[in-house]
């Protein structure tokens, strides 16, 4: 009897301690996240994390460098540049929709929009801009919107990610926490959380692939996937991971993925935008 109640007490205390850590603020989370990878991979400079698995795997890195000699995503950047320059019938351009200068946009997305009470991704902001100029919305998972994102990523290269979770916006923290919960929640038939692969097992093999670190994940999207022979967005990669653990993927630009992007991007604050990228 005594023993049982002691067990119960300990369980509760342990749970409370866990709870307190889980409720830590974004900045504490980020510092702990960075510290984890710094101690796991002491030889990898922080700035390298934006290169994904190529920061860890030297043989793969050499092949990647050869692709980067003349990466196929250059066509996407070029198309994006042309699209960005287009003038709407209103006489305005995409640039007029953004508060930032073009070279800074990518580094400040996603952001929390207080009036709407939700996370706005760059892809959404592009479509918002179109809506504001009476243009048809672009589909999220293909073509033009990815090209524009590729162009904006390219323009922002070298700018440090600067994702904000403002203290005075409770909705922002809630969205961040929801993304964080998604990230650490096991799902699917294989019962994996994002963190199981990309924190706990980062650098290890999954069959012939090595797992990348989550730190730096959002900096290089969109990417040209050699496997697919085309460009994909960060949300498509999310969907790919969810499918890989045999869970049903969520819609692109769903609340789930936007909040996840918000959390994940915050974790990479201070790392330079280096998109678009080339991946296997």
């Amino acid at each position, binding site marked *: 009897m005594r*023993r049982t109640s*002691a*067990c*119960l007490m*300990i*369980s509760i*205390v*342990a*749970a409370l*301690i*866990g*709870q307190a*850590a*889980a409720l*830590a603020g974004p900045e*504490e*989370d980020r510092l*702990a*996240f960075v510290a*984890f990878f710094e101690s796991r991979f002491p030889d990898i400079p922080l700035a390298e994390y934006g290169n994904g698995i190529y920061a860890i795997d030297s043989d793969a890195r050499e092949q990647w460098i050869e692709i980067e000699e003349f990466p196929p995503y250059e066509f996407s950047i070029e198309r994006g540049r042309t699209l960005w320059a287009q003038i709407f019938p209103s006489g305005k351009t995409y640039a007029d929709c953004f508060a930032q200068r073009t070279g800074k946009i990518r580094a400040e997305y996603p952001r929390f929009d207080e009036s709407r009470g939700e996370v706005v991704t760059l892809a959404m902001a592009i479509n918002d801009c179109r809506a504001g100029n009476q243009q048809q919305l672009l589909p999220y998972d293909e073509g033009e919107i990815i090209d524009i994102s590729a162009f904006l990523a390219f323009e922002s290269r070298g700018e440090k990610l600067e994702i904000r979770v403002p203290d005075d916006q409770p909705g922002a923290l809630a969205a961040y926490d929801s993304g*964080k*919960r*998604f990230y*650490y*929640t*096991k*799902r*699917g*038939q*294989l*019962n*994996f*959380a994002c*963190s*199981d692969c990309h*924190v*706990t*097992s980062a650098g*290890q093999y999954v069959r012939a692939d090595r797992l990348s670190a989550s730190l730096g994940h959002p900096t290089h999207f969109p990417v040209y996937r050699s496997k697919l022979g085309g460009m994909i967005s960060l949300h498509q990669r999310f969907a790919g991971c969810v*499918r890989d653990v*045999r*869970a*049903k*993927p*969520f819609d692109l630009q769903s609340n*789930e993925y936007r909040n996840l992007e918000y959390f994940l991007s915050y974790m990479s604050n201070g790392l330079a935008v280096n998109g678009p990228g080339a991946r296997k």
Partner: protein
Amino acid sequence: MDQAHASESGMTTATVSPVSVTCVRFAVLAVLVMIISPGCSTAEDTSASDASRCTKDFAAELAAAEQLRVAAANAGAEWIATAGLLHSAKQDAEAGSMETACALLEQAVFEARSALAQARREADAWRNRVVR
């Protein structure tokens, strides 16, 4: 996978003395067993019963299974194959292949229940994985 589990229990036990490790593990295990058992018992029931069991009212059982799938989806925990299993079960039943229809239906129910159990388990378990 092993590593993931190891770190999970590592997070919990790091804050308590070695003696209590066992009881925390026991507590966690007990809770897990309680959560998982409804799903398990269903699976055992069906395997014990004969194949004609689900043909009594296939439509009703299919609807119930679909409800379970939706519940799992609403919890954000649906597995990838469940909807497809239900779809195939329905098609097989319509074609009169009740044996495979029932087997598929049972598999779908098992998946949906497991997904729901996973979601209940993860309601708190995710916190133990947070890097700190």
